[in-house]
Every structure is written in structure tokens, then in C-alpha cells.
């Protein structure tokens, strides 16, 4: 395709990408370099139903003047990135120099909000992604060998976890694992332990969230693999059959190599999605035991004081994290592409 034609061909999506992806990211990066103006505080008397008290408040006019002069706020450079609520460079180096052992350093690191969120985010990503791929493949193989009439209903039921909105799905499970819910009380009866609760300890909460993640995402892998299975060449499979290959050998040596590009595709999408894990933490009210980078952004933007600079810095760090995660897969794809072209 000539370059000119190609340009016209991709122009609409290029414009959309610049408008809806590049510009917002650019604005977030700019925002992350600024913090709020120094607040002009005044102390005055405030009265209400419970009497009068001295109250500190913000001088609205003075603040408005500051904002009009510099609408973005005070320039802070990369200061926000390295403060305690983000990369915490000072706290980390202090912990490193004053900790007697790696374990102590690690526990002090986990006390910092960014790193404890990163720990859960990474664990979630690297446990859920492979499990989703393996489980999705097995469901696809299972469904593919069903008789024709049973396929439709089975596919529908298998897709349900993905069809249900993540927030609703996690809320439903949250109520089911409640001490008085069906799963919660069954587990208590099973282990004969009245105080067993999936919501109470960090370990059990992490396991619950990971199980939820696999339950929610497996249908995606399943449907991609199922579509892929329909295109596996019949003659190669028949040749393997004639050579005396067992069912497992046919899957291992014909189906899986054939579907390798799909595995890369699913891994790519799942790494990105799982790194941004968010809804289950809200749905399961899990913030006491598990937080993620996306959850930190959400938490910064909620409540009576919205912390835009802090949320923007975490957003940029999340984008960088996704880039680092995807780089091995992308480099591999790029090499394959070059090899094919050569």
C-alpha cells in the first residue's frame, strides 16, 4: 500500500487516538508535575446548632487570585512522584539503610501505600493471567468436543461470568462469602470453624480476589481459544491420528503450537487488564487487605478533598508499569514480524 493511501486509511483512527488517548495522557502527565497553591488560611468564628467555635478556613478571594495567576498550581517537578504516597524515595532509602535484614526492609516497604498496592497488583496479574489462559484452553477443548446440540447452551453459560458487570459480579460473590452467605456458612461448617471469614485476613482476601479474577476472565480466553479451535486444520489432526497420536498428544503437538499467537494475544490483553485491577477491590470492600494502583487513583479522587496531582502521578506510574509489563511480549512480536519480512 502506498504511504499516501495508508495515511488516508488510518487518518480517522489516528485522529480519534490523538483526541481520546494521547491528549488525555498528555494532560495527566502535565497535571502530575503540579501541586496545589499554598493555601491562604484565615481563622474566624463559625456558629451553628452546637455553638460557636474558632474555625480555620480558606481565604477564597486570595486563593482565587493565586489560581487566576497560575491556573495549573505550583510547579513541583517530579516531587510528587518521589513523595511518601508514591515512590517514597526517602523512606525507601531510610528503610534500606536502617533495616537489619531483607525481611525487615520488605515489611517496611510494604507499609508504604504505593508498594503494598504494587505487591497486590503484581501478584494478581501474574497469578490470574496464566490461570486464565490454561483454564480458558481447557474449557474451549471441552466445549469443542461436546455434541452439537449441547454446544450453544454450554457456551452461553460459560460466558456468563464475563457478561456480568465486574462490580455486580463481585458484589454478588461478596454477599455469598459473607459469614451468613451460602459460601461463607458452608465453609464454616466444612472446616468446623465459626470464626473463619474470607474477608478477614489478607491471605484469604487475596485468594478470594484472585479466584474472582480467574472466574471473571476465563470466559474471554475460552471464547478466543474456541474460535481458534474452529480453524485448526483438519488434515493435520487426521494425519496425527493416523500416526497413532493420543488425544493429549494431538493437543500438545498440533493444537497448542497452532494457537500460540492467540496465547500471546490473550496474555497481552490479560496483563493489561489485570494490572488495572479495580472493581473487585471495591465490590469486595477489600481495601483493608488489598489495594491496587487503580484503587489508589480512585481513592485520591474521592472524598472531601480531591488530590489531582497525586492521582495523576499514580496514573502515569500505572501507564509506565503497563509498558514495562508488555515490553517482553511486544519485543518478541516485533522480532517475529521482522523475521517474517526478512
Amino acid at each position, binding site marked *: 500500500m502506498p504511504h499516501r493511501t495508508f495515511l488516508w486509511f488510518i487518518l480517522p483512527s489516528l485522529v480519534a487516538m490523538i483526541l481520546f488517548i494521547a491528549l488525555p495522557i498528555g494532560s495527566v502527565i502535565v497535571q502530575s508535575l503540579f501541586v496545589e497553591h499554598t493555601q491562604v488560611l*484565615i481563622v474566624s468564628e463559625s456558629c451553628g*446548632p452546637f455553638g460557636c467555635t474558632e474555625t480555620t478556613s480558606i481565604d477564597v478571594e486570595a486563593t482565587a487570585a493565586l489560581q487566576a495567576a497560575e491556573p495549573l498550581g505550583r510547579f513541583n517537578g517530579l516531587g510528587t512522584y518521589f513523595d511518601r504516597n508514591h515512590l517514597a524515595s526517602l523512606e525507601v532509602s531510610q528503610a534500606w539503610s536502617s533495616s537489619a535484614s531483607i525481611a525487615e526492609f520488605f515489611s517496611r516497604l510494604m507499609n508504604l501505600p504505593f508498594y503494598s498496592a504494587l505487591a497486590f497488583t503484581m501478584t494478581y496479574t501474574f497469578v490470574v493471567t496464566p490461570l486464565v489462559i490454561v483454564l480458558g484452553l481447557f474449557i474451549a477443548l471441552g466445549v469443542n468436543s461436546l455434541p452439537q446440540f449441547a454446544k450453544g447452551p454450554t457456551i452461553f453459560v460459560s460466558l456468563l461470568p464475563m457478561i456480568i458487570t465486574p462490580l455486580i459480579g463481585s458484589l454478588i460473590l461478596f454477599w455469598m462469602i459473607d459469614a451468613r452467605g451460602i459460601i461463607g456458612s458452608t465453609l464454616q461448617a466444612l472446616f468446623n470453624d465459626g470464626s473463619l471469614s474470607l474477608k478477614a485476613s489478607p491471605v484469604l482476601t487475596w485468594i478470594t480476589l484472585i479466584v474472582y479474577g480467574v472466574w471473571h476472565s476465563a470466559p474471554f480466553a475460552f471464547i478466543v481459544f474456541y474460535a481458534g479451535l474452529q480453524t485448526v486444520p483438519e488434515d493435520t489432526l487426521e494425519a496425527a491420528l493416523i500416526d497413532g497420536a493420543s488425544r493429549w498428544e494431538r493437543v500438545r503437538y498440533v493444537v497448542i503450537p497452532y494457537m500460540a499467537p492467540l496465547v500471546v494475544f490473550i496474555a497481552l490483553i490479560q496483563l493489561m487488564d489485570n494490572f488495572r485491577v479495580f472493581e473487585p477491590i471495591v465490590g469486595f470492600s477489600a481495601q483493608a487487605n488489598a489495594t491496587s494502583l487503580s484503587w489508589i487513583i480512585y481513592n485520591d479522587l474521592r472524598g*472531601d478533598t480531591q488530590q489531582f496531582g497525586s492521582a495523576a502521578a499514580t496514573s502515569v506510574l500505572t501507564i509506565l508499569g503497563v509498558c514495562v509489563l508488555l515490553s517482553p511480549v511486544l519485543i518478541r512480536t516485533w522480532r517475529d514480524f521482522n523475521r517474517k519480512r526478512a
Partner: protein
Amino acid sequence: MTPTKMTALATVMVVLSGTTAMAGCGITAGNVSILSNDFAALNAVAAGAMECAGDRVTVTANQTTEHRDLQVAALTANPAQYTTAVVANSSIVPLLSAGLIRPLDDLVAEHGAGLKPTQLITIDGQVMAIAFMANAQHLFYRSDILAEVGLDAPTTYEEVLAAAEAIRAAGIMEYPVALNTGAGWNLGEEFVNMYMGYGGEMFVPGTAQASVNDEAGVAALNMLKALTEYSNPDFLTFDSNGTSALWEAGEVALATLWGSRAGTLLDDEGSTPEVVENTALAGAVTTGGGTVPATTLWWDGFTISANISDEDAEATFIAMLNGISPEVISANSDAAVWLGEGYEPTPAAVGVFASATAGAVPYPMSPFMGLMHSAAGDNLAEFLQGSESAEQALADIEAAYTTAATAQGFLQ
């Protein structure tokens, strides 16, 4: 559509507009749009304001528990998305700080003859909001269960712990205590309440410098932990809905809950007669030998947006006054502790009144309190689970607060 049907429809419309025009509350024209939290008392207020809808007056309401996250952006728009935001002592702060609400002195002088002076929230001499209800967390207890273990209603948290132990020892309940200890805003509120009960000062007076890492802080945390040891292991997920459900299910006997929940817990819906009849209310308890109840007093009131026309502001003020009229209040006296005329205290109000008369302090209205509240709510879970010391948890709160307050420009 046939001509006859058209005529009939037109007649109906004329009749409808005729009746609504009469219910205009004396407003000639204007738009009223309400943004508020979503609970029974506020629903009644909004319904009362909606009665003013008429010929050239529109009244709409968005009642959502997420109102705090909407209000600043919605009122910054010009013209503002809502003509009134219903706020509490904490949520009025961001609106005040950004200058998004207007002084109400003129409107009060013209239309506010029926308001009591205590309802006027004045800041630096200007009326900025009209308060209409009070709220506070206080003690709820099951009189039958306390009678079973032979104890009176507790007046201190030490007695609450003793009663909880007696109930557990008697084999009645394993987890008799519930507080709104869900990590986040709720847990932050419990810390603030307890810290106030120990007479603590959140900030170095006159500055935005945090000062929670002191004796009162440690004592407050230890008391919270002692209480959660008598709570269901899920306590870090407890919000008001969760604890109300536990109460109605008859699974707890001692709880510190919001006064605004009393109406729902005392009605005959959602629970058994045994639980409802034995649900008793008392003022918030004291702790650590202190005399001030371990709770904070809250008011709910309405504000008027700055970025709207004077005509809409006046219409909104009149409509909202209609929403808190003596008729609305007397028809809903169970729903809240109303501050206006027409309120006859009901059994549901006992706890809030007792807490206020015992000298509970109002929740601080300073612009950096929200950051401290969030920092507390986000950093106490590990301590309550036993994997961190009280001093470390308090140091974490101060560090998280200091970082956020520096970025927000409150600290240098």
C-alpha cells in the same frame, strides 16, 4: 389520535397545570435542583421541596450517597448544575473553600422568619447554610440481653467491653459488638470519635500540623482494637448498611451507630419483634475516664450555589424552606433529630440528644480535616489486625497526612 381524545388530553393538561400552579409556595418562577445524600430524612425534605413545583417552577432532585464526589464539579460549572447542595459539617468545607456557595443573609432576612437562630450556620459573620437536622453516633443496646447477664446500660467503653465479655462468657453471642469499622471513611470516623473521647487535638493549634501520634492517639487505637476483638471477624468491611443488617438480624447486642439509623432500626420492618422491642438507645459513651462522649456532632443543612441567577437562588431558598416546613418535620419526626419548628422528639432521638447534652464536640470544619480523616481511614487496618503497633499506625497516619497536606498547599 382522534379530535375528541386530543380535546380530552388538552383538558387534562390544563387541569393539571392549574392545580400545580396553586402549589407554587409563592415562587413566581425559577429552577430548583437539589443534590443531596440519600436517606429517609433527606428524601422527606426533597419531597417537601418538590411540592413547590408549578407553572413556571421546576424542582428536581438527585439524591445519591456519592453526592460528595459530585458537588464540587457540579457547582463549579456556570451556571451550576444544582441550585442547592445539601451538606454536612464536613462536606460544606470544599464548597466554602472554592467559593461555590453564596451568603444567605439577604434571603434569611426576607424569607427566613420561621428559622431558629441555631439553624443558621454562620462563618465569619455570614450565613452560609441552613441546618435542619442533627446527627451523631451513639450507643444502641439490647436491653433483654443486658438483663440476661445482669448489667445496666454501659456509660463508658470500658463498661461496653465488660458487658461484651459477660455476653460472650454466658454463651449468648460470640461477637456482641459492632461499630462502623469498614476501612476508609467509616474507620476514619471511628478514630476521630474515639480520639475526641480521649480529649485529643488532631492538629497543633493554629496550624495544619498533624498531632495524633500522642497518648490520646495510642489510647484511642487500643480501645478500638479491644472493641473489634468482640466484633465479627469481617469488621473491616462494616459500613452503616452492614451494621444495621447485623443489628436487625439480632446478631449483636452493643453497637455504636449513627442516630439517623435509629428510625429504621426501631420500625417493625426488616427484623423480628423480639429485636425491635428490646432495641434501646443511649447517649454516646465516654472512654478512658474522660467526661466528653466519644463521638462527634454533625448537622445536615442546605446551601445555595453561587453560580446561579438571583431568581433561581430565591426560588431554591423558598422551596427548601418548604422542604423543612413544620408540616414536613412533624410528619417525619421519626426520621431524624430535626432542628426546626414543629419537631416533637421521638424515642429515636434519645441517643443524639443525650450525646449533645453530655457535651460532645462538633466535627471539626477545617479545610484539612478531610485529608486527616482519609489518612486515618486508610492506615488503621493493619493495627486492628494485629500486624502493626499503635505507634507505627499513628506515625503512618501522620506521614500520609503530611504528604497529602503538603501537596494540597496546607503545609510548607
